[in-house]
């Protein structure tokens, strides 16, 4: 299996106060697999992913190598990078509400994105989006496209984002806490769509989350970060059954009491475990 994305000696620091956020991290994503990055807030998960997209704020600098299919993204100009974003690297953010332009209907955003990358006509875009949106269980796609972001729920918007990712067919999809802002029901539906997305397109994925239950469902490999450093990595099974590092054990044990209590209350019936 080849590696689709390789990150070597990535260092990220804040140039205004010389504070190092991520000292030195190296990891890779295999073709068609899903890598989950877990850790508490402030551990540098999001900064790492933004660094891959080269989307960090101006004051934050980075060094090292990021190879996408062998091509070094660090050497690309901003113009060439723009072409890569969306087409080859796709990102789904935590807050669906803020990811869309509030001043126009959702369809405009979708049309602009697809025009930029594929140069398709209006009818083609609508036809393709309609298919994709139906496949993520959005009823009435045309109506959804004619609504403003504030008229739609967080779960719906997040699924529109996934539908857009399906049409774009990126090489790698980066999802930064896509379900944290959602309630239990829509969380389940969005995760379901992510699982299907992987089955259907065999797309590689980086999945950032602090919810270990979701990580267990979706990821093949897990990377545990603490204060900018990678403390442990391995296959999902290995991390969940035999964690080596004390921090990983701490993360795993933290919600155990709650889960066990819940299982006891539910009479030992396992819920949504697959």
């Amino acid at each position, binding site marked *: 299996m080849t590696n689709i994305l390789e990150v070597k000696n990535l260092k990220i620091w804040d140039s205004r106060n010389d504070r190092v956020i991520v000292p030195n991290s190296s990891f890779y994503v295999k073709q068609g697999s899903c890598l989950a990055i877990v850790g508490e807030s402030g551990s540098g998960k999001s900064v790492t992913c933004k660094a891959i997209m080269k989307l960090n704020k101006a004051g934050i600098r980075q060094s090292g190598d990021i190879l996408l299919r062998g091509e070094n993204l660090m050497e690309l100009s901003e113009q060439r990078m723009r072409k890569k974003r969306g087409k080859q690297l796709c990102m789904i953010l935590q807050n669906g509400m803020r990811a869309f332009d509030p001043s126009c209907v959702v369809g405009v955003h979708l049309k602009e994105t697809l025009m930029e990358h594929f140069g398709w006509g209006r009818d083609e875009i609508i036809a393709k989006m309609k298919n994709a949106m139906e496949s993520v269980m959005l009823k009435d796609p045309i109506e959804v496209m004619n609504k403003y972001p504030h008229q739609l729920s967080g779960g719906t918007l997040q699924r529109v984002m996934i539908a857009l990712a399906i049409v774009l067919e990126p090489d790698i999809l980066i999802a930064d806490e896509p379900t944290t802002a959602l309630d*239990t029901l829509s969380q389940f539906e969005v*995760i379901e769509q992510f699982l299907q997305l992987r089955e259907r397109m065999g797309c590689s994925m980086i999945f950032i989350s602090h919810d*270990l239950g979701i990580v267990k*469902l979706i990821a093949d490999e897990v990377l545990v970060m603490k204060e900018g450093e990678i403390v442990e990595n391995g296959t999902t099974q290995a991390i969940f059954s035999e964690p080596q590092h004390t921090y990983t054990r701490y993360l795993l044990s933290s919600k155990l009491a709650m889960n066990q209590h*819940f*299982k006891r209350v539910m009479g030992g019936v396992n819920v949504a475990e697959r």
Partner: protein
Amino acid sequence: MLLSVESVEKSYRKGGLFSKEREHVLKNISFECKLGECLGIIGESGSGKSTLGRLLLGIEKPDRGSILFEGKKVEDRKVRTGNLSAVFQDYTSSINPFYTVEEAILEPLQMKRKAREEALSEIDHLLYQVGLDPSYRKKYPHELSGGEVQRVCIARAVSTEPKCILFDEAISSLDGSVQMQVLELLKNLRKRYDMGYIFITHDIQAAAYICDRIMVLRNGEIEEIVEVEQLKDVQSTYTKKLLQMIIA
């Protein structure tokens, strides 16, 4: 009965300022909450959980029906003062950014007309209760992490020794491990101060962990009220579906 809610209705104007159309947020809500009980209110986003929370706090008035706190109307400020506290989800905006932790906790204590010296001496104890040391007194909210700010908010809510605290998604925006610490803290505080909680959340597992009874809201109506111990024998199909969709 600490809280008794009877056939409460609430609707908001939908659309523009002069629009006649109204959105019915809460429909015929009636329930009771005993002294020292912990009641969980769960539901999807948009089910009216937070609106119900604001009505219980007396910040807003219901269109119809009544909410009584110890037999008196909750809208009356005198009934609430010192007896009913709240902790909200957005910890970044919960504390006045110009206040230090000390000033933030002092505010409700002074409302109860306590002498300043007495109140000041109490702060150390309160901070200790929520697991923070006295060095936090002079810090500003932006210097603290999310979990720490939420602890300060809890200390502030506990300071007047209320009979009931309302938590509106108070742990939802915290990390998994910090969530657990706060839940444990709430469990301990409840024993020590003999308080009741109203715990509004969409996290059913957290609600099951801390509450005695759980109320399920759906589109502004009460779907079901169930004892936590009987959670596995829920009646309505909606609640069953909700429970099946938990990713544990």
